[in-house]
């Protein structure tokens, strides 16, 4: 992605995942970080993204449907070496 010298807040919003994934080319990464130095709003946005990701990571994985899990367990018991 080619960007002008300065990134607008709109660009930051679009690039934030690339930034967090360490996927921005070095020049863009630099401009991204420069923008954060003077823009509190985008700093907050980045913090919110990080908080959202951390919170999502604390959700419990959904359970498998019980009867599917029962079938898998049955296969496991049938296979069981002992």
């Amino acid at each position, binding site marked *: 992605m080619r960007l002008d010298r300065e990134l607008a807040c709109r660009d930051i919003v679009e690039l934030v995942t690339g930034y967090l994934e360490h996927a921005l080319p070095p020049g863009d990464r630099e401009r991204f970080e420069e923008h954060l130095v003077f823009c509190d709003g985008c700093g907050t946005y980045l913090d919110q993204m990080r908080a959202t990701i*951390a919170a999502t*990571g604390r959700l419990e994985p959904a359970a498998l449907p019980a009867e599917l899990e029962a079938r898998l367990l049955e296969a496991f018991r049938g296979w069981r070496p002992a």
Partner: protein
Amino acid sequence: MEELLSPEDARLVEGLRNGDEAAFRGVMREYGSAMLRVAQMYVSSRAVAEEVVQEAWLGVLKGIGRFEGRSSLKTWLFRIVANTAKTRGVREARSIPFSALGDDEDAVDPDRFLGPEERFPGHWAQPPEGRVLGAEAMHVIERAIERLPPAQRTVITLRDLHGLSAEEVRNALDLTETNQRVLLHRARAKVRSALEEYMR
């Protein structure tokens, strides 16, 4: 042989080999629903996806004795699920779901509506080590994820909830690097936005 595996993985692998049901439950709790989710992205119905998981599980049992831990347990598990699902998907003559991102019908990111001059108000930002979001906020996140289009929901769940790496998700779902990132970005932006609305 397994020194490349995390201690947690090594314990699960050992347990599965020994027919230990606690290890079975551990794997299912960690990855069971994710395996089903991956399968669902390749085949047309929930019933077929469940069959894929069953078939893949037999493959896991067949292979666990020879599993050498060159990749993590989850990488290996999801590879088996994806390959099983792909074979099944081809038999069903169903095209791979992610071409053109699959989710294009959905609305533009809420976050794109931010004008160039607007600033984020920032009232709920918290440092990463700050207070933990309450149960109600967690519920808001869960609902926001449920409302996402399937590909976005799958990617954010595998990445942020089950903790798969970008590469693991790309391999499990046959995504390009860019598509993985775009789907993740849209998903996270919507979840963030739902949280912001809740915090407002």
